[in-house]
């Protein structure tokens, strides 16, 4: 099923509707809203599922090498059931790795992802609480890359809509050598 994006310029909000089996294993199906960037940056966004659906439907802040279905990517995902996760595909056509955090239950989320060289650090907040750092991974991805927001319904037979609000994308200075 086809996805769609609506931008509300007054409210600075994006309604992203996506279908697709999943963003997982060796191939991804989801709706993506992106721009090209290089270097270091920070992405912060509010995310709220507007539709019911499968527990593992995903709203993500993603870095992706290309639009190929099996492209390398790393993302911070919030699942419909409130499971935060860092997931990544190291090389084109490879399987997906996951780091799943304890389930927090459904809610309204703030997601933050920072790229500093090969270090990808993620934060999350639920229902207006303070941002909490979940941790970081090490991920190699070339410049330029596609930075964006994605939605997958985790089902070929369903679509889900996520409201992304208060989107802030900020370039950061170059990281010091690790």
């Amino acid at each position, binding site marked *: 099923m086809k996805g769609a994006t609506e931008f509300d310029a007054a409210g600075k909000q994006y309604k992203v509707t996506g279908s697709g089996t999943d963003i997982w294993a060796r191939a991804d199906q989801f709706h993506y809203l992106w721009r090209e960037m290089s270097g270091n940056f920070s992405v912060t966004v509010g995310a709220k599922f507007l539709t019911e659906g499968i527990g593992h439907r995903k709203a993500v802040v993603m870095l992706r090498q290309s639009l190929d279905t099996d492209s390398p990517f790393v993302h911070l995902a919030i699942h419909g059931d409130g499971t935060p996760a*860092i997931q*990544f595909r*190291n090389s084109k056509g490879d*399987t997906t*790795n*996951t*780091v*799943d*955090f*304890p389930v927090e239950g459904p809610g309204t989320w703030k997601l933050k992802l920072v790229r500093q060289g090969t270090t990808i650090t993620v934060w999350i907040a639920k229902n207006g609480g303070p941002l909490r*750092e*979940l*941790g*970081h*991974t*090490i991920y190699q991805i070339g410049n330029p890359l596609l930075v964006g927001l994605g939605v997958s319904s985790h089902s070929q037979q369903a679509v889900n809509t996520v409201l992304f609000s208060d989107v802030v994308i900020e370039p950061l200075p170059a990281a010091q050598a690790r």
Partner: protein
Amino acid sequence: MYRISAISGLFLLSASLFGQGGSLGAFTNSGDVGNPAIKGAAEFNPTSGEYKITGAGANMWAKQDQFQYVWREMQGNFAVSATVRFVGTGADHRKAGIVVRQSLDADATYADVVMHGNGMPGLQWRSRQGEDTNTFDPPFEGPGTFKIKLVRNGVKVYLYTAREGAELKEIAHTEVSFRNPVLVGIGVCSHQADAATTAIFSNVSVEALETPPPPPAKK
């Protein structure tokens, strides 16, 4: 108590290169993985229940691991926990932790729950033999004595950690597919080819967990 499954001929061949003398408590074997330039050593004190493990090695990272390992063979699901502290000074990223490996090969599939010298916990894994290591590191505050725990439940590998005195907390889990049996143990790596480092593991527990039967074959 645990029953060690029959040791295969291949395993015996590997084990013959490794120390098997004396009691290693919850484990059966010890030795260096990846042939570090400086040899490691492991001692178990049955009175205190402490393991003193000295290990060298460039790292457990990328496509090759070098470290001192104390292990046993296991099947199915299990939980391993320990209290760990480093002795003396060393590299920030020296590692002491609980390591599950497919084999003793330096580039074997593995998953571990480690504490770094600077107090950073890590959940690290190599999904397939010869591949690069993946890592997840939660936020941390600095060095100390820590409780760590690794749980294998099917393909899921869980990281639990806490500072000594605090309640052990589930942090996250990843997914790694191993064949049975696997090697389960504790290990130390100095993160320096030219120096060894020592860590003390206490309150070590290795517990077999219920393993659900495999799903029925599809018709």
